[in-house]
């Protein structure tokens, strides 16, 4: 009896201790968050909120009024529409291509090949190469007098002005894939290595085809990796602006004129309100995409359980 009481007392003390810890957790958490949180709010959250607020305002000083004029101007603007379409189109085309190609390569690399480690190094290498130092090579390849046109002429085809026709779009997709494929490959490799091998063995014993294995084992168990890869690929598809800008400048060919070009140029023209309106719309677009991705992932996870 006495023993029991002793035990219960300890349990209670332990529980109180736990509650105290939990209470402390929140306080400690905010302490850990202060450095990042203050800077993050100061440089990102607060000014962004202010900017969005400003984008709904018209006029200056005392005569300010709420209005949607910046947004209606924006939507009416041809170059904004072009830029928005191009940005969306670029991500919508290049991200799926990227995912399919890198998943394919990761699956091959996951097989017992020779020089696996070396191959992996080679695939990741473009990621760490600064693009500013690669621009010259792209010029050598894609210039009017460049190597690609030389090789085309061997085949008896006429030259293409790669950066100043619709072909520019595909050049940028190639650059994007070249640069980011290694990152996705190592992410997929990690996901693939987590799938237990005996799933495939069982499937083989039961006579399942390769396609069935891909669809019902590989892709199912890769879902969370796929989700992560998709998010990273979308970010990286926005970052390809840097390369485009270095190669083709502030006003490139129409087919690769992105929202980032538009916003950059608005900034240079000091049209800040239009720029913030465009930024707010792009942020909204990204928010919607992320919500959809999260929704899909959550639904998938539920169907797995």
């Amino acid at each position, binding site marked *: 009896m006495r023993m029991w009481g002793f035990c219960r007392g300890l349990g209670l003390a332990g529980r109180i201790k736990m509650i105290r810890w*939990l209470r402390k957790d*929140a306080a400690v*958490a*905010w302490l*850990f968050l202060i450095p*990042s949180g203050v*800077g*993050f709010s*100061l*440089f*990102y959250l*607060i*000014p*962004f909120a202010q900017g969005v607020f400003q984008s709904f305002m018209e006029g200056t000083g005392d005569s300010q009024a709420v209005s949607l004029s910046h947004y209606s101007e924006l939507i009416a603007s041809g170059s904004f529409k072009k830029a928005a379409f191009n940005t969306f189109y670029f991500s919508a085309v290049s991200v799926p291509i990227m995912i399919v190609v890198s998943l394919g*390569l990761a699956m*091959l*690399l996951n*097989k*017992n*090949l*020779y*020089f696996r480690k070396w191959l992996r190094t*080679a*695939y*990741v*290498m*473009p990621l*760490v*190469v*600064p693009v*500013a*130092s*690669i621009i*010259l*090579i792209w010029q*050598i390849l894609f*210039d*009017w*007098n460049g*190597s690609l046109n*030389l090789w085309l002429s061997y085949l008896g085809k006429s030259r293409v002005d790669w950066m100043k026709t619709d072909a520019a779009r595909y050049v940028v997709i190639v650059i994007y894939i070249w640069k980011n494929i290694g*990152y996705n490959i*190592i*992410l997929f490799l*990690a*996901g693939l290595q987590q799938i237990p091998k005996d799933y495939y063995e069982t499937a083989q014993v039961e006579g399942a085809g390769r396609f069935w294995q891909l669809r019902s084992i590989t892709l199912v168990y890769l879902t*969370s990796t796929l989700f*992560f*890869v998709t998010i*990273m690929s979308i970010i990286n598809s*926005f970052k390809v*602006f*840097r390369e485009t800008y*270095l190669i083709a400048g502030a006003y490139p060919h129409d087919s690769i004129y992105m929202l*980032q070009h538009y*916003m*950059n140029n608005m*900034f240079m023209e000091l049209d*800040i309100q239009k720029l913030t309106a465009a930024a707010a719309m792009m942020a909204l677009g*990204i928010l919607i995409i992320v919500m959809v991705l999260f929704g899909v992932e959550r639904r998938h996870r539920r169907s797995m359980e």
Partner: protein
Amino acid sequence: MRVRLTLVKIVLTIVMCVFAVLLLFPIGITFINSLTTKQEIELNYGPIGRINETVVGREMPFVNLKLMPDLVSLEQYGEVLVNSPKFLMMFWNSVFLVLPIIAGQVFVASLAAYALSKLNFRGRDALFFAYLLTMLMPFQVTLVPNYMMADRLGLLNSPSAIILPGIFAAFGVFMLRQFMLHIPYAYIEAAKIDGASHLRIFYTIILPMVKPGLSALVILLFVDYWNMVEQPLIFLDDPFKQPLSVYLSNVNEGQRGVAFAASALYMAPMVLLYLYAESYFIEGVQLSGIKG
């Protein structure tokens, strides 16, 4: 059967090697060209950017992409390192922009990531979502906020205008949080029972365990900021404060003769850092990508 398997393996390896060579091609060409004389570079790549022009009545020739220079020389390196003080100056500009950003972000982000992954508090998920969303935004979306803040704090035309937003960018928080989710809670429980404070737990248990994550973050940040172009062009008016990435994009137009050596020197720190920390980097990236 075994012979067939080996054959398949060889063929696949060859295919993958071809692909690897294609990916490494631009790097290799940069290096090879950096060992070529200025004269030969002009000769080989002079036709770049001259559309529908003619030379002495004849059509412009194609560029001459060579895999071996006629004459191997270190002339370009000499020119870049000795004769153009601008290169070295901008190299150091890059270093002094990138190092504080990396050090600052790693410090700030690892603290925040600990709170977001291992501590329970209200609003945690919402806060994390804010970080995630900001991380997804292209630079131009946060350009105006950053610019306004820099202007208000009087930081324009000073490196701090780039360094401070860099330190507080969301990527590090996101990546380290993903990584820390893998650390079993039991470690923290055990340390708590021994009476360790959270700061101590963070310092002696968590940090050593996230070493691969930190390495991956350092490399990814290095790549990103070593490469930055938009920020310096907007925040720094003074050409003497510009980093090397901006210098290179100019050099590409004007002095093609030394551009390859400049490029090679510019990419060298990145490539060496990567090769040095490759296994950590890969482990770090991989663990940040899979759910614990």
